[in-house]
């Protein structure tokens, strides 16, 4: 007998099993931020003591919000805009706002993966010589004055093109054969590669000093509000929540799936990988600090791009079997980045498919080709680094964070849908959701994220981000943050095709279990 679920799976695509869904969700959550952001944030905010606010944030914001996203996608069986439209017609713009954010993230995230891809090969002969920062900015990216140029850098263009071809191929194959199979293969590879990297890093001289710096608790840090804000920010950005990814992925999972139990696995896998990354990164930093006679803090300074493209090349140049360490490290960045990029672009493809009833290949082309062209035009030029840095900051701070807070408030207080979502989860979920979850999602998480948002905004007023010129911050930064909201509203005004029902798919009792 053909069920409603079979029809849905044929039409929209679906993951073949819970395992594939969990691996795809882990692939989305585990990204560049786990490897280069978490270790630095933890070190800067109390070291070992950071574990306490981090765990509190995981339990009171990360996992509850993740389950809200899962609930929306799993119950309403659609991309972010379709799920919101089915929740309440007037909330559809939230879904399109998230789609706009994902589109912009995809175009610049691909560039960072392209850098890592190139550095995987640079690691073999240590192409950066004895000046990794100068090589990265001057020779590799050829970044000059802060301006927007059309001077193409072939060394970035080619790997970026390769990344987009790979992504479009994956997306074209569909939910299971493309996204699912990629996750099924790449996530175990990522874990194995990273474990080998950590083992190698731990054998380096000075690794114990690095771990000491990473784990030594500074208990006084717990009294600082900024440390708690950093913990909530880290959990929030790391878990891929609040901007449509988990809604979209949850819509591809069978009705009978234990979504709360799956959410726990995804949440702890993401945090577990962050811990592994912290151990590997700080063991390596301990080596370079000892070799060069500098403090660990100095070796780790910069975080993010600085850690990956300045500090690690230095480590690779000086460590025994450094080339292997480099291939493992940058290879991990490529894999982690690719599985996250796939999830980000899927939010857009899924939304376009639902709205215009397009085929998989059609939607992939309509979304992927413009995204690839914009990505290549803006991020393979000598101004790519600056545009990327500004866009990343503003889309994270005033895109993802704002839409997350707004959507949480709308779902909790505007539409009052949390009880319904909890009941939906409780049918098949191993972890039962009740008043505590509703209280956390209605009050604690929005308050915590609003605090992170306001704190960041006040810092912004105090000091312009990155000392960039105001015209760049206004056009690329604030411009992008406002543009995605305008896009969200306009896209929600476009009519759905007659064949798309905006009613919640009703299944028989047999089908729901």
């Amino acid at each position: 007998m053909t069920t409603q679920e079979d029809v849905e799976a044929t039409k929209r695509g679906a993951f073949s099993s819970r395992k594939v869904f969990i691996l795809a969700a882990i692939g989305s959550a585990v990204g560049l931020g786990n490897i280069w952001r978490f270790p630095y944030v933890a070190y800067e905010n109390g070291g070992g003591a950071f574990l306490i606010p981090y765990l509190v944030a995981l339990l009171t914001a990360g996992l509850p919000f993740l389950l809200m996203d899962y609930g929306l996608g799993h119950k309403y069986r659609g991309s972010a805009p379709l799920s919101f439209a089915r929740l309440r017609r007037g909330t559809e713009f939230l879904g399109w706002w998230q789609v706009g954010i994902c589109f912009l993230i995809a175009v610049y995230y691909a560039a960072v993966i392209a850098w890592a891809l190139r550095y995987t090969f640079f690691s073999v002969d240590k192409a950066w010589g004895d000046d990794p920062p100068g090589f990265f900015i001057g020779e590799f990216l050829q970044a000059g004055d802060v301006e927007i140029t059309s001077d193409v850098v072939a060394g970035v263009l080619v790997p970026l093109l390769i990344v987009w071809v790979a992504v479009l191929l994956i997306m074209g194959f569909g939910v299971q054969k493309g996204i699912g199979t990629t996750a099924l293969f790449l996530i175990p590879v990522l874990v194995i590669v990273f474990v080998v990297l950590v083992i190698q890093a731990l054998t380096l001289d000075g690794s114990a000093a690095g771990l000491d710096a990473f784990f030594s608790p500074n208990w006084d840090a717990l009294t600082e509000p900024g440390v708690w804000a950093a913990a909530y920010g880290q959990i929030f950005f790391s878990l891929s929540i609040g901007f449509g990814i988990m809604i979209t992925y949850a819509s591809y999972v069978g009705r009978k799936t234990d979504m709360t139990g799956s959410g726990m696995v995804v949440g702890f896998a993401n945090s577990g990988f962050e811990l592994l990354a912290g151990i590997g990164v700080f063991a390596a930093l301990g080596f370079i600090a000892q070799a060069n006679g500098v403090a660990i803090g100095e070796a780790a300074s910069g975080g993010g791009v600085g850690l990956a493209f300045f500090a690690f090349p230095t480590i690779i140049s000086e460590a025994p079997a450094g080339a292997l360490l480099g291939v493992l490290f940058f290879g991990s960045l490529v894999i982690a980045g690719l599985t996250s990029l796939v999830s980000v672009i899927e939010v857009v493809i899924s939304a376009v498919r639902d709205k215009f009833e397009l085929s998989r290949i059609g939607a992939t082309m309509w979304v992927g080709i413009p995204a690839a062209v914009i990505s290549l035009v803006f991020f393979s030029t000598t101004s790519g680094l600056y545009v990327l840095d500004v866009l990343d900051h503003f889309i994270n701070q005033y895109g993802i964070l704002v839409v997350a807070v707004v959507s949480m408030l709308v779902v909790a207080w505007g539409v009052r849908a949390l009880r319904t979502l909890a009941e939906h989860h409780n049918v098949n979920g191993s972890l039962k959701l009740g008043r505590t979850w509703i209280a956390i999602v209605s009050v604690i998480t929005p308050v915590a994220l609003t605090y992170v948002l306001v704190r960041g905004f006040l810092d912004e007023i105090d000091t312009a981000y990155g000392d960039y010129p105001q015209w760049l911050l206004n056009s690329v930064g604030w411009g992008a943050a406002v543009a995605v909201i305008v896009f969200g509203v306009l896209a929600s005004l476009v009519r759905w095709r007659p064949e798309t029902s905006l009613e919640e798919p009703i299944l028989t009792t047999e089908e729901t279990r």
Partner: protein
Amino acid sequence: MSADAVIMMIVAMLILWGGLVVAIIRLNRHEPPTLDEIHRDL
């Protein structure tokens, strides 16, 4: 490594990696409700 750092490292491993193991075991042991249970709820 200092004793404090070692303790915090072990605690972090136990909570995060242990939490993952528990979550996986819990997920695998969970049986979906029977039709009777659903009808009783209704």
